[in-house]
């Protein structure tokens, strides 16, 4: 079902249409919450608040075809509100250098079957700005750059170049990790 039709059906109480929207966009909302480093409980709260607000606005979404952008913007506000209320200061934004830091020590004892686990650990070591962008880009299904821009309050034109630098940085961390090197 197209998104405007699904929204209209959900506004009439069509649970299947609503569940279709939940299935399509929950990955994006969860990824946004994780991009802001919310823990399990806070991330669940931010996602739930976003859906509750959509229910409240079901018949008042001005541009139904841009629902993903509305959800991304709402999720960002919910995440930042949780962070403010918890009294955590936002992470300082770092410059992203083209030349990577030296690769960290790597656990050579990992077996091949744990490659994804190793990759995930390396990913978590990225500087915050890189980790944040890549975490949203990792959402499933893959989000449009316009929606990523709204989720992170970034210019849409900056996403491609920063994505490239951050992936290069991650590849550099992977290089030297004999477990992961074959796939970079």
């Amino acid at each position, binding site marked *: 079902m197209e998104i405007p039709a699904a929204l209209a059906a*959900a*506004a009439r*109480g069509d*649970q299947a249409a*609503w*569940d279709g929207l*939940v*299935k399509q966009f*929950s*990955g994006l909302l*969860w*990824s946004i919450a*994780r991009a802001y480093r919310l823990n*399990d409980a806070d*991330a*669940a*709260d931010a*996602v*739930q*608040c976003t*859906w*509750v*607000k*959509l*229910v*409240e606005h*079901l018949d008042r979404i001005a541009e139904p075809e841009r629902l993903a952008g509305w959800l991304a913007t709402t999720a960002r506000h919910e995440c930042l*509100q*949780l962070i*403010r*209320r*918890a*009294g955590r200061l936002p992470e300082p934004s770092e410059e992203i250098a083209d030349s990577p830091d030296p690769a960290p020590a790597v656990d050579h004892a990992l077996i091949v079957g744990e490659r*994804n*686990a190793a*990759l*995930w650990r390396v*990913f978590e070591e990225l500087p915050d700005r890189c980790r944040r962008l*890549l*975490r949203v*880009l*990792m*959402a*499933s299904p*893959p989000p449009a750059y316009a929606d990523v821009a709204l989720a992170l309050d970034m210019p849409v034109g900056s996403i491609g170049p920063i*994505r*490239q630098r951050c*992936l290069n940085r*991650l*590849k550099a961390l992977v290089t030297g990790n004999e477990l992961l090197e074959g*796939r*970079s």
Partner: protein
Amino acid sequence: MNDDEFLDVLRAAAEEFDPVPAGVLRDASAALALRALDAELAALVESEALVRGDGPVTLAFESERVSVSLEISDDVLRGFVTGAAGEAVVETPRSRRAVPIVDGWFTATGVPSGLVRIRLTAADGTPVVTQWAHGTA
């Protein structure tokens, strides 16, 4: 491996190590039941909270028939309403509880953190519900 392929590998890792929890999907599905079709909406007209940390949150809502002001401090919610009497129903996405309105005032304790809204009955019998608002988070 090009960047798109590398990102696909990362996406697979995210799905393996940080998937959307089943409970988050269940709550999202259940949220549709929170539609308030029958009620007049009281919009948030004022919101004040300390930027960080402790202290009460104060909120004001207005509809055509009713105005409500709330003060939420920890898990205690105190409200003052004009244009409605009887009971105030304090709702969160997972709970609802009716408390009596006495001379315009009502108090609920043990209110969970997160979103909250109030259902009221206007003097002419019209159901009214406030927008969702953050109490304490």
